C-alpha cells in the first residue's frame, strides 16, 4: 500500500475517473461540469479524458436533468448527477422523492436505480441565504434514499466509490469548506455507506457530528483536551442509514454527548440522534444530550452574521462544558 497526498476535490475526481475508466455505464452530468470545469472544479479536466458525452454539461434545469439521471439509471446506466448546491436541489426534490425514492418499492421491486447525486452544501463563503443552507435532514428523512456526508479526503474518495457500487440512489453532500482540504491517504481503502467512525477516542463525552462540522468539532476537542476534558468524536458519515450501533456504543462508553451540525436546530439531524439515544440508551445518560446547531435564520451575507449563524469552535466548547457541568 502506498499513501499519497491529495485534496478532497481531487479525491472526488479520482473516484469519478476511476469508475469511468472501469465501467462504461458511468457518466456524469450537471451544470458547467465540462467546459467551465465544475463550479467547485471537481470535474476539471475530466471532459478532456472522457469526452463531453460522458462529462455532460446540462442546461439550467435541475428537475429534468436529475430526473434524466433517474431515467438513465432505470435504463441501465450508472449516472452521477452534480447539482451545484443543495439550495438548488429543491428544484429537483420532486424527482428525488417522488421518483428516485419510490419507484423500486412501488413497482414491487422490479427496478433498481443506481444513481449518485452529488451536491455542495453549507455556509462559510458569504453567499447569503439562497446559497448557504444545509438541508441534509430533508433527504435523510426519506426512505428509499441513502444519504452520505464524507468529511475527510479518504471518505470523499472511498464513499463516492462505495456510492457508485451501490444499486440505490445515493445523495452525497460535499461541504463547501472541504474542497481545498488536503490529506495523505492510502491506496485501496474501502469505505461502506453505513458505518460511522470514531475520529478521536475519548472517555468523558461524545461529540457527534458529520460533514463540514467535523473539523470544527475536532478542533474543539483539542481545546477541551487542554482543559483535561477527553472527548470522543464520532463522525456519522452516513445519515441514512444512520449507524445506531456506533452512536449507542459511544454513549455507553462516555454517557454524555453533544451533537453538532450546521443545519437549523429544530427538526434537524441532532434531534434524531437525541431521540434515538432516548429510546435506546436513556439509562446510560449521565446528562441530557445537548446540541450545537445552526441558528434558525436564513443565513446572512455579512461575515460576522454568517459566522454567528452556525456553530463555531467556541460554541462547541461551551456546549461541552455546559453538559459536563449539568451532571447529576
Amino acid at each position, binding site marked *: 500500500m502506498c499513501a499519497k497526498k491529495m485534496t478532497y476535490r481531487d479525491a472526488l475526481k479520482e473516484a469519478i475517473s476511476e469508475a469511468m475508466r472501469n465501467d462504461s455505464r458511468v*457518466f456524469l452530468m450537471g451544470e458547467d461540469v465540462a467546459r467551465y470545469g465544475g463550479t467547485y472544479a471537481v470535474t476539471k479536466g475530466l471532459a478532456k479524458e472522457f469526452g463531453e458525452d460522458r462529462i455532460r454539461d446540462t442546461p439550467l434545469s435541475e428537475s429534468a436533468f436529475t*430526473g434524466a439521471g433517474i*431515467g438513465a439509471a432505470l*435504463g441501465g446506466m450508472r449516472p452521477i448527477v452534480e447539482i451545484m448546491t443543495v439550495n438548488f436541489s429543491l428544484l429537483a426534490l*420532486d424527482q428525488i422523492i417522488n421518483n428516485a425514492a419510490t419507484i423500486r418499492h412501488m413497482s414491487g*421491486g422490479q427496478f433498481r436505480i443506481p444513481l449518485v447525486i452529488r451536491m455542495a452544501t453549507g455556509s462559510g463563503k458569504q453567499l447569503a441565504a439562497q446559497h448557504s443552507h444545509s438541508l441534509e435532514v430533508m433527504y435523510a428523512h426519506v426512505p*428509499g434514499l441513502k444519504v452520505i456526508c464524507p468529511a475527510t479526503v479518504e471518505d470523499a474518495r472511498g464513499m463516492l466509490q462505495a456510492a457508485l457500487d451501490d444499486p440505490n440512489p445515493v445523495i452525497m453532500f460535499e461541504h463547501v469548506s472541504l474542497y481545498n482540504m488536503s490529506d495523505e491517504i492510502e491506496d485501496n481503502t474501502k469505505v461502506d455507506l453505513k458505518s460511522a467512525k470514531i475520529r478521536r477516542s475519548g472517555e468523558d463525552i461524545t461529540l457527534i457530528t458529520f460533514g463540514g462540522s467535523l473539523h470544527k468539532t475536532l478542533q474543539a476537542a483539542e481545546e477541551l483536551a487542554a482543559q483535561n476534558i477527553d472527548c470522543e468524536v464520532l463522525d456519522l458519515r452516513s445519515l441514512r442509514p444512520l449507524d445506531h450501533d456506533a452512536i449507542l456504543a459511544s454513549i455507553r462508553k462516555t454517557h454524555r454527548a453533544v451533537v453538532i451540525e450546521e443545519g437549523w436546530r429544530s427538526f434537524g439531524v441532532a434531534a434524531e440522534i437525541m431521540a434515538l439515544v432516548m429510546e435506546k440508551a436513556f439509562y446510560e445518560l449521565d446528562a441530557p444530550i445537548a446540541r450545537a446547531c445552526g441558528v434558525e435564520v436564513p443565513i446572512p451575507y455579512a461575515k460576522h452574521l454568517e459566522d454567528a449563524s452556525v456553530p463555531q469552535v467556541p460554541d462547541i466548547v461551551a456546549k461541552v462544558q455546559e453538559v459536563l457541568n449539568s451532571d447529576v
Partner: protein
Amino acid sequence: MSKDTLEKFSQEKCLKLFYEMLRIRRFEEKSAELYSAGKIRGFLHLYNGEEAIAVGVMEMLRDEDSFIGTYREHGHALARGVSMKSIMAEMYGKVEGCSRGRGGSMHLYDKEKKFYGGNAIVGGHLPLAVGLGLADKMQNRDVVTACFFGDGAVAEGEFHESLNLAALWKLPVLFVCENNFYAMGTQISREESQVDLCAKASSYNVKSVAVDGMDILSVMEETQKAIDYITKNESPYFLEFQTYRFRAHSMFDAELYRDKKEVEEWKKKGPIVRFKKLLEEQKWLDEAKIKEMEKKIATEIQASIEFAENGHWEPISHLTKDVYCEEM
C-alpha cells in the same frame, strides 16, 4: 379515417385493432363497476374514449421499445400485452399484481414489457423518459422510448425542461400528448395561453404533428412516421393526439365543468364506433364477429377477476421489502 388507409392493413390486423380497443373499453367499464363494489380503491382514472391512442401507438412500437405513462394507463398496459390478470390483481391490491399490489391503478409496471410505469405526478415522468432515451443513446441501442402524458402536463415546468433536453441532446424519445382538452376540470384554454400544443413543441425545435386521436389508422400512420423519423434523425418527436375522455376524470369527479351535450357530441366521434362503421362498410366486421369478440373479452375479464379474487395479500412482514435494493 378513410378506406384508402384501411387498405394498407389486412383484415386480420384491423380486427385485432378493433378487438384491442373493445377489450380496453370493456375492461374499463368493469373496473368502474368493481370500484363501485369496493373491490378497487384509491384513484381510478378510466381511458374510455382514448383507446385508439394506446392501441395504435403500441401496435407500431417494437418489442425493444420502452414506454412510460401516467395514472391513466390501463389501456397502454393492456395494449402492450401486460397480462390482464396481473393488472386486475394489482387494482385489487394483491401480491399477484404487476406491482405486487403496492401501486394500484395509478402505478402499473412491467419490466418485461419495458413498461416504466404509471406515474401520478403530472409531468414527473417526462424527465424519466429523457433519461431512458439518454441511456439508449449512450449504449447505442436502437430503441425508442414512448412517453404518454396529458394536455395538463404541458403546463408543468418539467415539460419545458424535458423537451429542451431531449431536443438538445437528440434523444430517441417519442412524446405522445393525449390531448383530451381537459386537465381534471380545467379546459385547455384556461390552462394554456397557447392551445396549439404543436406550436409549443416546435419552439424547442422538436418536430411535431397534431393528429385525430379518435382515428386509429391515423394514429398508427403518424406513429410509424414518428418512429422512422426518430430512428433516422436521432431526434425526439412530438405527437399530439386529439381525443376526449368520455368519463369523469376520476371516480370522485362530479363533472361540474362540462356540458353533457359536449360529451355526447364527442361520443359520436369515438374511436370504436367510427372504426366499427368503417370495418362494417368494408364488410370485414359484422354483428356475429362482434358478439364473438365480446364473449372472448368477457371471458378474459372474468378470468382476471377470479385471478384477482383468488390472489393473496402480501404479508405485512414484507412491507419494507424493496425499499432498498440489496445486491447489485
